[in-house]
């Protein structure tokens, strides 16, 4: 099963849960950290990194000698990444989405592509648990290509946990896309509920089944629980606020280091999801 862990709101415990669950599942499973803007899973899982490769995206390379200044490139670029000044094309490469349109459009074949470094991909393992993450270069605007590349590293067999970025727009969508199920992690505050509603709306739109884990459930109010009853959103686990877990987290440890008893609860939850999908 491919299980995405997402939230809408940031800081609700996605990474903590993803790491604890991956560790509980152990050898044969895989964890993909797709929060490439702020990848933190490695801090908690401390994987042995076996390979690190550069990730790049194609951007146009214009041969000035061949360019006759037709301006077809400027015409077809929906992102305003190429502009002609005095009949000469000028590239704004941070605006480029690497669609390759200008390459196809140029009547003089004056445009080829070059690799623009956009990040890194790392692969490794934690005693038999497969690990991969993406680290977006600082200053890059879009994490989407890198997220897609990290997802392609999922081993052909075994369970896969995907730690997703916060929000509900393109980075989150691309991280969640293709998952069999999405586990949403939230906290029962007005902010948590508001963002949960957006995340649910998004998952409904892209047809991915989901359920909820409420973190720090004893710190908020009952509105999230009531909303879940009303909308028939399943709550699979409630985790109380626990200063021990918070402190362990601050040192880069998962909840399993201080509360190993959660291991069974997490595996049980995972199996409930799996069985639910089979049914």
């Amino acid at each position, binding site marked *: 099963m491919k299980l995405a862990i997402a939230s809408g709101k940031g800081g609700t415990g996605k990474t903590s849960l993803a790491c604890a669950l991956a560790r509980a599942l152990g050898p044969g499973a895989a964890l993909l950290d797709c929060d490439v803007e702020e990848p933190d899973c490695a801090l908690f899982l401390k994987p042995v990194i076996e390979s690190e490769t550069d990730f790049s995206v194609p951007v146009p390379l214009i041969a000035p000698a061949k360019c006759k200044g037709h301006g077809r490139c400027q015409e077809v670029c929906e992102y305003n990444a190429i502009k002609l000044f005095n009949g000469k094309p000028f590239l704004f490469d941070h605006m480029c989405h690497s669609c390759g349109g200008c390459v196809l459009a140029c009547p003089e074949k004056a445009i080829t592509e070059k690799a623009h470094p956009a990040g890194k991909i790392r692969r490794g393992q934690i005693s038999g648990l497969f690990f991969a993450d993406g680290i977006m270069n600082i200053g890059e605007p879009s994490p989407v290509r890198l997220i897609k590349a990290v997802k392609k590293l999922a081993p052909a067999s075994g369970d896969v946990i995907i730690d997703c970025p916060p*929000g509900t*727009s393109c980075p989150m969508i691309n991280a969640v896309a293709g998952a069999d199920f999405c586990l949403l992690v939230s906290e029962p505050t007005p902010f948590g509920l508001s963002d949960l509603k957006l995340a649910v709306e*998004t998952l409904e*739109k892209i047809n991915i089944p989901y359920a909820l884990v409420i973190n720090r459930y004893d710190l908020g109010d009952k509105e999230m629980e009531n909303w879940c009853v009303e909308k028939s959103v399943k709550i699979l686990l409630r985790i109380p606020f626990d200063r021990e877990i918070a402190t362990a987290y601050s040192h880069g440890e998962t909840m399993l280091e201080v509360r190993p008893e959660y291991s069974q609860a997490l595996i049980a939850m995972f199996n409930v999801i799996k069985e639910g999908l089979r049914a």
Partner: protein
Amino acid sequence: MKQVLILSGKGGTGKTTVAGAFARLAAPCVVADCDVDAADLHIILSPEPAVRQDFHGGKKASIDPSKCTACGRCLQVCRFDAVTAGPFKISETSCEGCGVCVWNCPAGAINFSEALSGTWAISPCRYGAFAGARLEPAAENSGKLVALLKTEAVKAAEASGAEYLILDGSPGIGCPVLASLGGVDAVVIVAEPTVSGRHDFLRLAELLKQQKIKSFLLVNKWDLNIEETETLEKAAAGLGFGLLGRIPFDPGVVKTLLMRKTLGETCATPAAGAVEKAWRALRSELEK
């Protein structure tokens, strides 16, 4: 008019709580919620209802099945895995609106039209004016919407004569964050003293260094891990960032939020006191 942007790198460190309290302390001011992906600031500022303006973030391609000859050219040219075969279809959520399939389709079977990506509005709230936007679920181009919202908020701030524009930012370091940086006078980074908090702080800090933006650190829940708090402060000072102090872990923060109030609005709590002190420190830095 000075623009103060609240960022964090890592999500859920307390940006919106700090932004709400700063808005109260800076009143009358203009406040804008630049986290259009998961906007929450309106919950504690309760702006008056306003007519919302549509935001079109870009175009989306769609295939007209009556004209499609199933030649597969669209599938060949699309770099975003948005086209699926049999019958040919374009996924609305994967389409990045590049239009390459549209002009490459020999049958002219692909439509290309503006998609509604979100809405925005500016309306009065109890501390001045509130600018808020909402991205449609699964929509794209949050960066463009942030840029638009910021432009409108700056106009409103200039027109009203407000001294401050308070901007609540997005987590991460990608396009919505980049779009919120233009023209800001100071960034306040709200960070928590954890291993991941430090990691994410350093990535954001490097971005702000690159962009040469005056930045300040405000540590939230500092007493969760005193060593990490000190490490964060040392790192920030080393980067030339100002230090705005430490906010303690305080159950009063969630209680205030549950009442849908800004921190310090209804009662003095330890966290509220720390945020007020931070605001005074920031203000005196900006008025130097």
